[in-house]
């Protein structure tokens, strides 16, 4: 592997990608809304109007799984609401960030490159197919993971500040979220990337690829609904298992994606 070439590929992809508005929105706006605006709104507004009562708590307790119920026992209604929302509801939403960031960058890098007709010159360079692929993969993965981790830090600060009056001790960082950030989020970034590698074989334009590719958030939405519906809840074991499943899916998709990533096929498909 020629790391200088890989770095050059990443530099090129990122410089190009950051000028695509369609990419900047999920990279900047999504984390901003998810990690700052939502926790801010949800926590500051109810505390100002002082709100949740035992009735609300009972409703919440009736809704969630017994495992999660145990986590909320002994908290005041406001505290239970905060923990439920900030720790458990936000966990699957957090995963949308690595997923979308890598997905949308990969769409620009794999499909946008072809659409802009800049792929051919790249194929004539002395890079190997492997280097080209690794360069493109890292272009999507590295920013996705950096944004996620920076997001986790930011979110921890905002969420702790927002819940400081309510809670006796800081909610973040905590072991569950550490597992999610360090183990599950990179796997989710991998899923965003590898699913886009497959989509890229057929998609003609960045827009096409982006629309089809963003369907990968559906499983995350299912997790979210599952938690509200009391089918499951995000504990460490679920996170570890989910991460493992995602890594396995990543490996399988990467295997298939690699099969299609050969110069000769890429040029014939131009």
């Amino acid at each position: 592997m020629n790391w200088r070439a890989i770095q050059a590929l990443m530099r090129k992809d990122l410089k190009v990608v950051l000028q695509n508005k369609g990419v900047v929105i999920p990279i900047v706006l999504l984390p901003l809304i998810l990690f700052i605006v939502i926790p801010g709104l949800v926590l500051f507004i109810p505390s100002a109007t002082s709100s949740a009562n035992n009735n609300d708590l009972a409703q919440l307790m009736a809704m969630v799984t017994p495992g999660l119920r145990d986590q909320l026992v002994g908290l005041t209604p406001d505290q239970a609401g905060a923990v439920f929302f900030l720790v458990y509801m936000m966990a699957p939403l957090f995963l949308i960030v690595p997923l979308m960031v890598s997905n949308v960058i990969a769409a620009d890098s794999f499909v946008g490159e072809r659409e802009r007709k800049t792929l051919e010159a790249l194929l004539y360079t002395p890079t190997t197919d492997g280097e080209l692929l690794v360069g493109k993969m890292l272009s999507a993965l590295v920013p996705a993971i950096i944004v996620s981790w920076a997001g986790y830090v930011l979110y921890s600060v905002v969420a702790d500040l927002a819940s400081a009056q309510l809670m006796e001790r800081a909610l973040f960082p905590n072991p569950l979220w550490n597992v999610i950030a360090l183990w599950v989020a990179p796997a989710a970034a991998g899923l965003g990337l590898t699913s886009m590698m497959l989509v890229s074989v057929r998609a003609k334009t960045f827009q096409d690829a982006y629309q089809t590719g963003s369907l990968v958030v559906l499983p995350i939405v299912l997790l979210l609904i599952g938690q509200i519906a009391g089918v499951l809840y995000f504990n460490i074991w679920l996170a570890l298992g989910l991460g493992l499943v995602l890594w396995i899916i990543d490996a399988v998709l990467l295997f298939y994606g690699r099969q299609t990533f050969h110069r000769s096929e890429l040029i014939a498909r131009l």
Partner: protein
Amino acid sequence: MTDPVIVASGLGRRFGETVAVDQLELTVQAGEVFGFLGHNGAGKTTTIRMLNGILTPTNGSSRVLGLDPMADGPHLRTRTGVLTETPSLDERLTGRDNLAIYADLYRVPKDAVKARVDELLTGFDLYERADDKVGGYSKGMKQRLALARTLLHKPEMLFLDEPTAGLDPVAARQVHDMIVQSTRQQGHTVFLCTHNLVEAQRLCDRVGVMEHGKLVALGAPRDLARQLVTNLTVDFEVDAEAVPAALQELEGKGITTSVAQQTGTISVRGATHSAIPDFVNLLVGAGIRIYGVTPQEPTLEDVYFALHGEQPVQRNSAEVIQ
């Protein structure tokens, strides 16, 4: 001329039903400017792709600079430079970034990158606009930048796919000079695809003409013209008073002549190169004194049309005379 730098044997590529390149047999010598001509869709670009190891042939094999493009592609591509048909530049990046990134990809020594990029930007008259986004460049500027990118790593062999398409005459001239310089002074080899026959004639030592994936003619432009062109014009200089007699002699044999000028020059049209001595014999035999015989050299354009049979077929004087 030493070892061949390109050898294609039975090289072919199919796309489904389409045969893009069919059984190509070709040898190009080091230091040669080789012109690759042919209609749209004749298989020129496909050939360049196979010779650089970025497209797998369906038949046959090739060796370029002694390497097998399919097995040694990356190594081979450090020694070749390819100007693609469309400039294939990142329009969202500046001219300088485009070059600097490719300098890394082409393994230009790290500490030489900046100087090399500046040198090329200056050489191609892009220095002033180097930090503007390429999207705002004119077509000619883009083409020049793409050429500069092709030369970053000082390749021994250049593949230029229609390098002057869309360039103004001055810019086209610069490209021609660059080609001449890199071959004549540095001994590099140039494989030039072009639709510009004047350009090919001026620059190329040899040309190959492709048609539907097949190589239908190969040789020095001059030789090809002699072999293939059957509607040559030959001027005969005779005594002014002998013109009517000479015309009568020629026309009596059914040979097409054009205006006989009072100066004593008769132009015979539709001749082949090999028939010139026969004309001379005919006239001399009739007692006409000849002061000069000037065949108007056929151009590659004539060759091209002769091959594609697209000009009204003129009467072949050689046949008439025998």
